[in-house]
């Protein structure tokens, strides 16, 4: 059963179509893996308190704090696992940490 199918794997792929051995053909596919549903705690960005000091984005292990034109944007909740490092690093209490609601 040689690998004829080089399409990205999605959770609805059937066993005959899945790439043998789990071989992966597309780069950067971690983005397709929505790890946001692992979250038990959720960081909330309080825009009024934020000074855009830029301390939080580089601490995020999942690159879930998007930055545009030298300013952070709201969280990428599809991928934020809720580790809380950004909450700890913020000197201005501009990030709160709340329980994830179902």
């Amino acid at each position, binding site marked *: *059963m*040689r*690998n*004829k199918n*080089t399409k990205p*794997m999605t*959770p609805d*792929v*059937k*066993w*005959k179509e*899945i790439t*043998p*051995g*789990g*071989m*992966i*053909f597309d*780069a950067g596919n971690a983005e397709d893996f929505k790890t946001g549903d692992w979250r038990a705690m959720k960081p909330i960005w309080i825009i009024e308190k934020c000074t855009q000091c830029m301390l939080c984005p580089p601490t995020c292990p999942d690159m879930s704090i998007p930055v545009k034109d030298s300013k952070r944007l709201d969280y990428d909740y599809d991928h934020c696992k809720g580790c809380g490092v950004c909450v700890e690093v913020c000197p201005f209490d501009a990030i709160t940490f709340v329980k994830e609601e179902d």
Partner: protein
Amino acid sequence: MAIRERLSGNEAMAVAMRQINPDVVAAFPITPSTEIPQYFSQFVANGEVDTEFVAVESEHSAMSACIGAAAAGGRAMTATSANGLALMWEMLYIAASSRLPITMACVNRALSGPINIHNDHSDSMGARDSGWIQLYSENNQEAYDNFIQALRIGEHDDIMLPVMVCQDGFITSHAVENIELLEDDKVKSFIGEYEPDHYMLNSKEPIGVGPLDLPAYYFEHKRQQAEAMKNSKKIILEVAREFEKLTGRKYDLFEEYKLNDAEIALVIINSTAGTAKTVVDKLRANGVKAGLLKIRVFRPFPAEEIANALKHIKALAVMDKAESFSAVGGPLFAEIKSTLYGTADGIKIVNYIYGLGGRDVKADDIETVYSQLSDISKTGNIGETYRYIGVRQ
């Protein structure tokens, strides 16, 4: 013209490796398979092959190096025995599930403990569910022939699985026998070039191999892997037919020896089949309808074909050169019994554990088994099914 030689089983496998000229051989010495990488490293030193020989620090590393080499797109091989195979355990499964057609010479030896260097089948029987195709060899010729066929089987489009070629440690691995070798160019053309569709050294197509496979995907991969193992039975036969055309030597999923009209029979693996054939001949000369079935392919297990070949037998002994500690019998017994369930229920079937740790199995022992089968056949009384032959009572 084929080359007539006299070689030990290990030498025969090393010669097969030389003729195949694989990209990578990674191996760690362990008795009784040590000679294979030893001979092969001489071929490397003499410039007779182009192989990268990786002298690793353990069998876990040997299999890991083979996995890396195969993922990169190369032909990779190793040789091992017993505890060496056990140390590869984790990587055996990874090789198979990553669908890498690695070839292994497994020289069967008793698995510790207590530590023992002599032959039984506890090593490869323990690895029977690792996803490797397993071929077994009665003698040096079969070890050589199986090794060459193994590549074609494992690398086939519909398979892509690693193959383990087993022979009995010392009994055949160190015994010198007459053997017919193929010419180097014939081996080369039989195995062909290995051209995987996808491989890691292909700079035009970057790929990832062996990724994390969470609940959304793992099950589908296992289902697909099982399908490849099912497909392999057909390919093993196709390759055997092609090999027969080349050599005149016929291979099948198993060998039937005077089984057609037999009333009592053994199912047996590897070198002891040779001893048992002598006994069959002797019994036949005395009018006893004895026969045997020698397993060549244990994974995939040719259940349907075996059931068909055995269905007329009255009393059957399954010979296991390995304990399984299931408390009901050895691994081959479990397979054969489940094979016959619902397909040939009338057969009286018993199990003999024999030859553990290199205990000699003599013609007399095999004759005792046949004589007990005759008794079962006559009286219809099976008695204890989980038996031993050759252990001091």
